[in-house]
């Protein structure tokens, strides 16, 4: 009898171990292995465990490398106020025993969605006090502020204080609500491409059907495709069919029926890089260890239009192929999927009316505000604006929303107005129809100290 039960137990143990072992090493669907729901930041790549867990053994450094491989660049650009190097001096050893600020996961622990706050924070919001106890004596103005109100809208941010540091607040304290010249930077891609080709003595001109090179294509050519291409920026600038539909110009190169971001990347590296860094394309990023399919609206917890639920994201999902109309991509494409309060309110907003007027020629070029203006801003790569790149990482200016102030809001608005507007949650929901009903005292406090 005993032998029988031993046998059953052994079989069960081997069976369960084999099942999970196989799943961990070879399995396609690793869902049962997830120890807890992943946060909004990472849920898209939760099925690729080895993107973050690169090594079964290795301690905190392994996970730290996983964080930095995707997030280090952004923190560097943000002039991170609390980089690891701030904490490595041994004089901080006793503080680090409670909160080890050298490692991302000390404050941003994954797989604990139930205790995850905004920005992926898994610490109580008064963590700042652990190191900054001197504030009580040093800042009279902060006497009555709550201990968990430090990292709040318009005041302080743990990592990115580019729009919030004192010197910046003071320098831009007196700006009006609307600037005298309220324009976003002019796009420069086409112009720079023509100049670059001219340097190589390559002629750039609008192409017609007779000029089209689709040598490796076999089958019937859809007529509307050719017309769309001819009218697009590609067709107008000597970009051939095989430039996208093949990986080389030779006649026997394989025809790619549906080019993806890898083909677009051959010319549009910064845009594809941004796309793969944001929520639209992170599943397809090179840093993801397993091949994942592009995200569809159905898999996200945001609100989307019913007819868009099954559409996989890609370059052409917004920039419909062959037309590549950037105006459509700036508004219509977004609203084709996004169905939340803020998106729906856009069409009634003052920003949209500016956009409409610009399209109709009633306002100068670059004075309108589309979805893309704020969520995929045009960024000047140099002071003169000779090189302007559209940042395709829709997350770059999203959270915390103070990240939007410098590249976007301050093109048209003064700093004080921008801070107040972004702190007003109701105003954000109705897509900035009206004035901010909140006033954040950051600039006032900075000016007060300046006077002393």
């Amino acid at each position: 009898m005993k032998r029988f039960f031993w046998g059953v137990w052994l079989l069960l143990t081997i069976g369960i171990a084999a099942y999970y072992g196989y799943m961990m090493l070879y399995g396609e669907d690793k869902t049962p292995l997830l120890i807890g729901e992943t946060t909004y930041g990472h849920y898209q790549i939760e099925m690729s465990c080895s993107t973050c867990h690169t090594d079964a053994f290795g301690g905190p450094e392994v996970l730290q490398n996983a964080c930095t491989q995707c997030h280090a660049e952004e923190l560097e650009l943000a002039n991170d106020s609390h980089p690891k190097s701030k904490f490595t001096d041994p004089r901080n050893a006793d503080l680090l025993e409670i909160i080890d600020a050298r490692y991302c996961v000390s404050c941003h622990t994954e797989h604990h969605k139930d205790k995850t706050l905004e920005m992926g924070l898994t610490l109580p919001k008064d963590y700042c006090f652990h190191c900054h106890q001197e504030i009580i004596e040093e800042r009279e103005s902060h006497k009555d502020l709550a201990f968990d109100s430090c990292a709040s809208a318009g005041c302080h941010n743990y990592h990115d204080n580019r729009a919030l540091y004192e010197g910046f607040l003071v320098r831009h304290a007196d700006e009006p609500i609307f600037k005298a010249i309220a324009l976003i930077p002019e796009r420069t891609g086409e112009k720079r491409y023509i100049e670059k080709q001219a340097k190589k003595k390559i002629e750039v001109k609008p192409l017609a059907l007779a000029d089209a090179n689709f040598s490796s294509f076999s089958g019937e050519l859809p007529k509307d495709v050719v017309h769309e291409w001819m009218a697009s920026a590609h067709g107008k600038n000597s970009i051939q069919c095989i430039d996208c539909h093949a990986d080389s110009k030779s006649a026997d190169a394989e025809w790619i029926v549906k080019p993806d971001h890898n083909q677009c990347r051959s010319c549009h590296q910064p845009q594809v890089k941004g796309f793969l860094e944001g929520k639209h394309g992170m599943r397809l990023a090179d840093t993801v260890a397993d091949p994942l399919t592009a995200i569809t609206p159905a898999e996200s917890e945001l609100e989307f239009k019913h007819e868009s639920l099954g559409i996989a994201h890609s370059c052409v999902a917004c920039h419909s192929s062959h037309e590549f109309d950037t105006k459509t991509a700036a508004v219509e494409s977004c609203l084709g999927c996004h169905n939340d309060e803020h998106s729906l309110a856009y069409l009634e907003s003052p920003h949209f009316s500016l956009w409409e007027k610009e399209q109709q020629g009633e306002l100068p070029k670059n004075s309108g505000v589309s979805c893309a203006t704020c969520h995929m801003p045009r960024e000047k790569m140099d002071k003169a604006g000779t090189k302007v790149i559209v940042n395709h990482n829709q997350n770059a200016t999203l959270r915390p929303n103070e990240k939007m102030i410098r590249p976007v809001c301050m093109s048209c608005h003064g700093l004080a107005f921008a801070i107040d507007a972004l702190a007003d949650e109701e105003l954000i929901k109705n897509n900035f129809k009206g004035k901010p009903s909140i006033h954040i005292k950051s600039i006032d406090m900075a000016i007060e100290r300046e006077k002393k």
Partner: protein
Amino acid sequence: MKSVASKKLASKKVVKKALAVVSITSATLLIASCGGGDKAVGIEPQVHTDALFAVMKADRTNYTKLIIQRLGPKGAGAITPKEEWKDLENGAPLPAQMFRAGAEAVRDLNDTFTYSLQSLWPINKQNAPKSPMEKEGLTFIKDNPGENFYGTEELGGVNYYTAVYPDVAVAAPCVDCHNEHKDTPKTDFKLGDVMGGVVIRVPL
């Protein structure tokens, strides 16, 4: 029963053997150590930290005089040394910031020592002394001008040799900026004053 004579002979043989062994061994050692030449020996921690401080001081003084004074607002006006230099056109780090940047960079390159700039009258309160030894050291160099402070302490389970060197106001911009800064707790620094200390730590 062995005879007395044979016992004496036997003990003589033992002595001879012992002498032979000793002389061969010492000869070998002598030859070996002669051939060995210079063998590296450890550096005294104090010599080590003094040397490190000399480099740090020289580099920062040179940066202040050759770059900031020469190219800054009082010189060519080509650079703007300011706290928020990263955000300014032609911005340049202040000497204290250049010093701290060095300290941070060193931690990525080398883990045999760390250093920091601290003060009893810091502008940024995070640079006030934290450990008891830091407080003791900074007080000592303030009360004993011209002298350095040396000691050992334990932090986070590791023993350190801690050296505190006086950070003296060598140029007028040092005292002017600190006296006028909105966050300074002390507004009467003079040239030649000890404004703070460089704390160098070597894990033992």
